């Protein structure tokens, strides 16, 4: 096991607002790391930095020791970091099969026919539990189905690490259990590193190996789930008692 993704001193401001302040973090291979914090803590901004949608004002990002700080999203994706979005973004006017096929094409490893890509996409849809929806237009799916589809598309790019932005938000309890089972399968079967943002505390505490807590753009705590829940600063950040 080694470090797969590493961020050093990452900062990002939007105008006068510092969304992310000097954050250091790392992801070990095969780890599930949770990223929590109150609204506006900078979680999604950190994801956007890691996936190349924004570039940090300061700091460096590494993937397997390679500097990826200035790379564009598609390059970072091809090097092995996949992601889903907080507000789901499947290709709404394309079929489920086509959505996943785009991810496979995105890998940019040539020498495969369309038929083969189609078969692989079918397998991935089956993997996330969307078999039978191949021809369905993504815009007609329910929220959980869209989230599953987004996961399939991210998996199709064959990431080594996958960033999941609130995959459980908006799901009912039984759907949460299904999604958690899927995340566990991704880790155990596909041996991927998972970095996820979640507001459903019970779920993230149970499933993560390690948790990073952000508050107002800064990392205030990092550790095993049991250390996090009892930390006064974390509780303070959530309940708004930091100044007390």
């Amino acid at each position, binding site marked *: 096991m080694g470090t797969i993704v590493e961020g050093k001193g990452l900062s990002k401001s939007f105008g006068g607002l510092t969304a992310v302040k000097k954050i250091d973090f790392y992801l070990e291979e095969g780890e599930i790391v949770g990223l929590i914090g109150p609204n506006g803590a900078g979680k999604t901004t950190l994801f956007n930095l890691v996936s190349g949608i924004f570039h940090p004002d300061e700091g460096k990002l590494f993937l397997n020791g390679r500097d990826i700080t200035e790379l564009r999203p598609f390059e970072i994706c091809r090097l092995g970091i996949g992601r889903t979005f907080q507000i789901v*973004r499947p290709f709404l006017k*394309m079929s489920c099969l086509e959505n996943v096929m785009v991810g496979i094409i995105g890998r940019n490893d040539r020498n495969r026919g369309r038929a083969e890509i189609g078969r692989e996409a079918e397998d991935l849809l089956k993997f996330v539990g969307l078999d039978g929806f191949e021809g369905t237009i993504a815009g007609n799916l329910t929220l959980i189905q869209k989230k599953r589809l987004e996961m399939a598309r991210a998996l199709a790019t064959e990431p080594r690490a996958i960033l999941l932005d609130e995959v459980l938000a908006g799901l009912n309890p039984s759907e949460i259990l299904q999604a958690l089972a899927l995340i566990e399968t991704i880790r155990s079967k596909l041996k991927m590193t998972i970095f996820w943002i979640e507001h459903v505390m019970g779920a993230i505490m149970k499933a993560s190996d390690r948790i990073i807590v952000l508050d107002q753009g800064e990392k205030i705590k990092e550790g095993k789930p049991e250390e996090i829940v009892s930390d006064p600063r974390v509780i303070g950040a959530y309940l708004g008692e930091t100044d007390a």
Partner: protein
Amino acid sequence: MNVKKFWIPVVFIILAIFPPFFLSQYWLHVMIISLFYVMMASSWNLIAGFTGQVSFAHAAFSGIGAYVSGMLAVYLGLSPWLGILVGMGVAALLGLGLGYLCIRMGGIYLSLTTLGFSEILRIIITNEDRWTRGTMGLQVPGFFTEYSKASYYYLFLIIAILLLIVIYWIIHSEMGLTFRAVLNDELAASSSGINTIQVRILAFTISSAMAGLAGGLYGHYLMLITPDIPSLGQMFLVLAMAVIGGMGSFVGPILGSFLLEILSEYIRIYGEYHVLIFGLVALSVARFAPEGVIGILGKKWESVWAR
């Protein structure tokens, strides 16, 4: 590809062989012009309908094809058959350059830049009359030593079919999937490993090359090239054909081209107002029936073969 999907175009192509046997010279001319617009609207649809980049330089690129090929024929005596290929190449190169410059801007900025490019080109052509003969028009040779509308009809038909086969192939290939992914959600496409800028420039270049080819053909058919070819009036006509026919579908722009070209023959007596009328109709279609006539004709039919 299922049997039905295969036979419908074959039937249309076989039917398309017969018009020269019974149509008058005038209506044959209308058919030839319609085929030119089929090439224009379908290739414009490739960028506007499939990658969502509303370019206003499409007529300009057809003008580049026409003038390059025409001037090569007039000043260097190059055969139009070779000339249209050179014209297409020049249009592709300029498309690549313009694409590279303005595609990163995207959206309305791309539209404005291409609009500007189109006007600049038209003004240059109009004013550099020593070479282009300006608004007088440049007289160029035709493709055939013996002029016959039927030969031109078949030439346009064959090239339009070839162009449509290429377009059909593109939109059903992996490239087409990436086009549509960029259209649907550029950020998500980028995060899925798609080099969105490369995809958009590629679409722009291919589409410009096709416009260049269509323009070259058109010029040598009319045998008189004027700044009307790269004009915005022409551009809006092409836009209206694609939008009214149905953007983002394969058949839509083909249908729209025939529909509007034939229709404009009937309302020609009202002068240039037909472009205005088509523009208004196109606006209403874009607002109330974004999938165009094809969309109105029914999803069922579309699912059979339009995509």
